[in-house]
């Protein structure tokens, strides 16, 4: 059957859509649901019977659109049968759309706001009873919670030191995770170690959870020679193949379609793994976000989108970034399931991500999970956020929404113990930083490596020209009497 003939059949008998590769629907069920939706929209009571409803529709619409099929229907049949006999045309772009004579906007503000899932309140009190928590699938084991907490503390300590190191001129750039530790570490803990992670740039907590050491972080930030990228990228642009953590790029949202492609690869391999993709609410304004959502939904890729909605894209507040209900609400438009959770509640993040991960793996379809949080630090070391937000605002969130404090209270860790842990981490980070600074840098002639799999002739020539230049400069005495580099 030609596609044209097949389409023709679908238009007149939309319930045989399966022939066209779409979802098969039952006319009866579908008509019934349309009937009940219309009735509730009109506020009609039970007295409005099926036959009268169809009759009214018939009366109102027949004069407007006298279809040949309807006119040809025998007058003796009941209104229901007449209506059923009418051949409504349903278009391929929205095959399930019922027809209505009621002109009504789909009002954005009338769409219910998605609630944020949480298990701990601001004071660190568990909102479930012990029995409920025990019964909750995916509730983290005590050991996992303790490890999440200690990782969040370590992340906090490392961020503070490396931020200060940039201020002292020891590294060129840094980005902190202050106030977002739960969103990053909680989600990392809920993922499997071999899930492919595509990060934006503020997700060093995922690497910390997966075993990236303070030395690894410091080596990357210092551009040490024995770090995989050997100083080819700015600090915080981490990447580790053995940890399934794809290298960070500064360009926003470009990693989202990559995660979709990787997820498709995992699906083709029938691997019991997913791709997890982090991005911020600002990045979700980029075209790549839209492309990736649409590809993930239509190509049915096992990818978990993790949006850190921290309220700011550098200086632009969320209120100037989008007009809808955050990012999670957009998922429905792509035909994708979504969740929203309190991103500063590590337990909620863990449970939500574990549950979403299982769903992605089971259905082999994407899920969008939005974590509501707050960027406690500046955007980066190149930013001064006091120019666009008040210190009172920052203090408010740091005081009432600090995820580390919340988990500390929940775990009943005393402050003295945390101070000791922080001091221990501080020493280790400072040692690592000192070692990284002392490490040799990549020799300049090696910078040509990794542009291509093998050095092509023109790059060999260019490398030789650099070598010759360096030799000429070295042979030439400088005015001060020492050879110039």
């Amino acid at each position, binding site marked *: 059957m030609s*596609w044209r003939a097949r389409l023709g059949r679908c238009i007149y008998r939309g319930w045989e859509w399966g022939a066209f590769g779409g979802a098969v629907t039952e006319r009866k069920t579908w008509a019934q649901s349309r009937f009940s939706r219309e009735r509730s929209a009109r506020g009609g009571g039970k007295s409005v019977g099926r036959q009268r409803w169809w009759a009214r529709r018939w009366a109102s619409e027949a004069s407007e659109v006298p279809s040949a099929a309807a006119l040809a229907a025998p007058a003796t049949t009941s209104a229901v049968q007449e209506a059923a006999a009418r051949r409504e045309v349903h278009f391929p772009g929205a095959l399930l759309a019922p027809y209505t004579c009621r002109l009504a906007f789909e009002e954005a503000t009338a769409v219910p706001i998605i609630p944020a899932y949480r298990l701990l309140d601001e004071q660190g009190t568990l909102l479930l009873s012990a029995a409920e928590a025990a019964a909750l699938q995916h509730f983290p084991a005590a050991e996992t919670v303790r490890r999440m907490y200690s990782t969040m503390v370590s992340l906090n300590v490392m961020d503070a030191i490396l931020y200060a190191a940039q201020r002292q001129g020891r590294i060129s750039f840094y980005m902190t995770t202050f106030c977002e530790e739960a969103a990053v570490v909680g989600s990392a803990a809920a993922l499997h170690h071999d899930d*492919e992670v*595509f990060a934006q740039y503020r997700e060093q907590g995922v690497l910390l959870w997966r075993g990236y050491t303070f030395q690894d972080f410091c080596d990357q930030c210092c551009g040490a020679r024995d*770090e*995989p*990228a*050997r100083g*080819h*990228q700015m600090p915080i*642009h981490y*990447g*580790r*193949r053995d940890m399934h953590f*794809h*290298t960070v*790029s500064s*360009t926003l949202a*470009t990693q*989202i*379609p*990559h*995660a*979709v*492609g*990787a*997820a*498709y*690869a*995992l699906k*083709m391999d029938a691997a019991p793994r997913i*791709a997890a993709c982090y991005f911020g609410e600002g990045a979700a304004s980029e*075209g*790549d976000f*839209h*492309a*990736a959502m*649409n*590809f993930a939904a*239509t*190509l049915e890729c096992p990818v978990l989108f993790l949006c850190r909605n921290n309220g700011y894209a550098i200086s632009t507040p969320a209120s100037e970034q989008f007009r809808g209900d955050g990012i999670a609400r957009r998922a429905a438009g792509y035909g994708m399931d979504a969740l929203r959770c309190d991103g500063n509640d590590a337990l909620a993040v863990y449970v939500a991500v574990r549950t979403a991960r299982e769903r992605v793996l089971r259905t082999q379809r994407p899920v969008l999970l939005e974590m509501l949080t707050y960027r406690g630090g500046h955007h980066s070391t190149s930013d001064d956020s006091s120019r666009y937000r008040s210190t009172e605002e920052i203090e408010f969130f740091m005081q009432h929404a600090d995820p580390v404090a919340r988990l500390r209270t929940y775990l009943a860790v005393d402050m003295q113990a945390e101070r000791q842990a922080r001091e221990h981490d501080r020493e280790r980070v400072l040692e690592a930083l000192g070692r990284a600074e002392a490490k040799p840098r990549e020799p300049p002639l090696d910078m040509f*490596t*990794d*542009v*291509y*799999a*093998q050095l*092509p*002739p*023109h*790059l060999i020539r260019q490398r030789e020209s650099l070598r010759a230049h360096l030799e000429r400069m070295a042979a030439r005495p400088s005015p001060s009497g020492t050879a110039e580099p």
Partner: protein
Amino acid sequence: MTTLHRAWSLCRRAPNLATGMPLTLLRHPRPPDLPSRRPLHAEAAPMSPSSSDTERMNLFMAVQSAMAVALETDPKVLVFGEDVAFGGVFRCTMGLRERFGPHRVFNTPLSEQGIAGFAAGLAAMSYRPVAEIQFADYMYPAFDQVVNEIAKYRYRSGGQFHCGGLVLRAPYGAVGHGGHYHSQSPEAYFVHTAGLKVVIPRDPVTAKGLLLQSIREDDPVIFLEPKVLYRAAVAQVPRGDFTVPLGEAQVLRPGRDITLVGYGAQVQVLLEAAQRAHQEDGIDCEVIDLMTLLPWDERTVVESVRRTGRCIVSHEAPVTGGFGAEVAARIQQECFLSLECPVRRVCGYDMPFPLVHEKMYVPSAHKVIDEVRLAMNY
């Protein structure tokens, strides 16, 4: 008019379809000794196959054949893009979905940046995605993904991850009536991007060999197909596994007096110009097809120009900042003392592709011969 109709009409209305003659050859009286339905200078082509295991194909069939071999020989090869499932608007993926299944050959939503980004993710997971961009003119939405992501994936990770095996295929160039948005030659943008390889075949044989090799490369490749030749160019193409190495130019016509350098559809123009320059003026032109623009085969060109002392570079893309500028710069550096005249460029003008003036816009054989005479009389 849908894209499909537009693409079909581009093929249909091209004068070459009726006769099988390349469009460029129809602009002028047909040269007596250059039959159209024969691979050009097959005897000079080292990669030309023996006739026993070949099949008569035009360029789009050769492209399809290359992808079929790739899908057959490597389970990691995937083919996708807009309208790819039913065979593609230029029919290059015809029959592949039926043969290799809907999971390996599939449609994507209409988003070039999505296609490129999706392909990058697949390549980073050791797949070999062959993604189609419907027209090279529509590669620009994918520009960020190509330049910032695909090209740099290896370098930024220190070789841990890379996009080797990724091929972005796109039809490029003049077609007779494509106007601004169905005629562009964007190769210079991509040649300026370290980490990519840029490949342009000239006929069905090179299309198959270069595409199959591009899919097997460990670096991402931008593969531009001369759409004017999809149906016009016909040749005996090897049926099975057949590759042409990247980064190697080919001397299609040896000559003593002047070197003509080009690639893609322009090679036909240069061959025709060489033929007529020989007949009309007794000028002996050497014609070189670069085939790979990044990295390009400088050695073959330099060796030729040192012999001939004269060189013309020709491409459809606008002249300023075009690939001809790079070739000219390298020649003056490497062949300075051998040059009898400045390197000349016969290229498109620095303007949007003008619909009704296409014949005047393109670097036709007339213009090439004119420049050959100027170079010889310098």
